[in-house]
């Protein structure tokens, strides 16, 4: 009787440990998959959303990192060490882009886009949205504010089902 109880307690404990470790690994996997590297999030994410690296081809990131002093009109200078670390992260993470980012780079040819918003696929996906919902919408302002409408943009998730335009709501095209 006592032995039975001990065995039961033991198996409950083992199951709990197993479940806990699986949960832990799951968390690590999920965060390594799409979450930006902490230095990138800190240095770039203090001024704008830390755009997921998969949204531009590696060459685009390399070009961008060469002109941080004039980063679309802003000064975004970094010390050499941080610059190198961020560039390596972006290039590597961009190369590891999944199927959907290859779709994103469709029709690019040899072009090296400067901005995510100039990708032909990006333009195609957003061209039906009237400007009153984007540029004339105070809570959005421009198509660069991915996370204004894509609730999970920072995790690299742009599923249309998660779109909610401020002051308008769900968008289906």
């Amino acid at each position, binding site marked *: 009787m006592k032995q039975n109880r001990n065995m039961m307690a033991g198996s409950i404990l083992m199951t709990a440990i197993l479940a806990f470790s699986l949960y832990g690994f799951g968390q690590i996997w999920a965060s390594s998959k799409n979450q930006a590297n902490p230095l990138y999030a800190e240095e770039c994410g*203090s*001024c704008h*959303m830390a755009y997921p690296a998969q949204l531009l081809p590696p060459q685009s990131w390399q070009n961008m990192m060469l002109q941080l*002093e004039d980063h679309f009109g802003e*000064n975004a200078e970094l010390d050499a060490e941080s610059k190198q670390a961020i560039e390596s992260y972006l290039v590597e993470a961009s190369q590891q882009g999944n199927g959907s980012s290859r779709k994103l780079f469709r029709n690019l040819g040899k072009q090296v886009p400067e901005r995510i918003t100039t990708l032909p696929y990006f333009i195609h996906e957003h061209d039906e949205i009237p400007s009153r919902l984007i540029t004339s919408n105070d809570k959005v302002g421009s198509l*660069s504010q991915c996370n204004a409408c894509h609730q999970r943009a920072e995790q690299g998730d742009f599923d249309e089902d998660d779109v909610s335009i401020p002051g308008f709501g769900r968008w289906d095209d």
Partner: protein
Amino acid sequence: MKTGQIVIALWLCLILITAVSANPNPLKIIEVYQQQGASRTDANRGKQLWETDTEGRRCTSCHGDSPSNNGSHIKTKKLIKPMALSVNPERYQDDKKIEKWFLRNCKWTFGRECNVQEKADILTWLSSQ
């Protein structure tokens, strides 16, 4: 000497030491700027610089009218937490970070780097807020 007198004497010594060693600058980096050539700091000069307009750009363009309140990036609209030391002391814990932002933001706002005097004055003003 009685024990009571000794205790009082020790207390007086302690108060004296604290008073003498008290740092007149709320931020250590201000002293660094002074070692690099900045002279006496002036909060009012810092405030003036903070509000100076250079071809339509000023610190308040992004940081907002009051350093005690949130600001927002002029272009991306991203929230910028308050600059006042009393409201947001976490801002001032890393000297390297302070230098990084001075470099970027002085160049954006004034089209040039700020000198040590200007940086010391601005920090003196922000830390009095």
